[in-house]
């Protein structure tokens, strides 16, 4: 219906959530999580750590084990001490933490292939952006269901840089 719907949502400055799958469930899930995070912030007077958020999300998804949300998330952020945190789940909350990359959505094969070959440890922010952009663009080129542009957010300790990319518009 639209060609400008990004799938990555911001939870707080150091935590972003990507949701693939059924759009209605992605929206509902994001709204529920935003609500839970807001309550957490009021009680704890601080933002949630990405690792905590990941486990909360996993639990929230498994609660619906026999009537699941058809949305598979990727959680990415920086822990309070600055170490990057990255995890992904399937639609019923099986959590997997990764040191390198995490993928969700249509055409996982081409994305896995791209990321595996292009990822190296200890990349700088600019290098990382280039890598992610290339992986996304190439991964989406052969995917009929994904594309029409991309948005890349690079989270560093003092800022988040978000860039919109133009890909093959088909």
């Amino acid at each position: 219906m639209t060609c400008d719907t990004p799938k990555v949502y911001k939870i707080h400055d150091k935590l972003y959530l990507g949701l693939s799958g059924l759009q209605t469930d992605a929206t509902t899930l994001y709204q529920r999580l935003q609500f839970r995070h807001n309550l957490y912030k009021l009680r704890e007077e601080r933002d949630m750590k990405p690792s905590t958020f990941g486990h909360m999300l996993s639990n929230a998804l498994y609660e619906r084990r026999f009537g699941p949300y058809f949305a598979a998330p990727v959680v990415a952020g920086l822990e309070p001490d600055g170490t990057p945190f990255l995890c992904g789940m399937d639609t019923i909350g099986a959590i997997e933490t990764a040191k390198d990359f995490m993928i969700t959505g249509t055409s996982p094969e081409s994305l896995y292939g791209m990321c595996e070959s292009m990822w190296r440890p200890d990349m700088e922010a600019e290098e990382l952006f280039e890598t992610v952009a290339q992986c996304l663009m190439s991964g989406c080129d052969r995917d009929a269901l994904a594309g029409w542009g991309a948005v890349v957010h690079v989270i560093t300790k003092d800022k988040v840089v978000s860039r919109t990319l133009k890909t093959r518009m088909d």
Partner: protein
Amino acid sequence: MDFFVGIKGKDFVMVCSDTSAAHSIISIKQDEDKIVPIDDHKVFCIAGEAGDRVNFSEYIIANVKLYALRNGTPLNTKSVANYTRGELATALRSSPYHCNLLLAGWDEQAGASLYWMDYLATLNKINTGGTGYGSYFTLSLFDKMWHPNLTVDEATAMMEAGIAEVKKRLVVAPPHYIIKVVDKDGIRVVKTV
């Protein structure tokens, strides 16, 4: 078989619907107005299951009115859209409303806005869009013709081109249509085809 399309212009939203009311193979009436006003500056175009359509639209309209009465201020289009999505989403996993809808509205702050929702509670803010078989023929046509500073006359021409395409290519094309506009002066009928 309901045909609904919407086009967002510079400071107005134009919606078009067919005016036939049918029950399986029988056409009951040809002048049914399916674009229902929510309040002075918002309309719903709801397509889908017979009972669900009217029931759901009346439910939403009543609740929007109640909010306005209780809080002394009317809801804006974005709020109505998100409220409707919430109701659809809550009902989805128990007894879903089987209706697809367009919400067109005009507000002071946001200007004109057009929202598309489907029975799964997917919500999208769109410039042009539609529901039903008719939309298959008009979506790409509108993509080509739309630009951000559309005037009412240009939008009417777009609508008429869309209707002509549907009449030409859709086997079960409805014969009559009504085109309405929502802008700062409220809701008015532009023409009937």
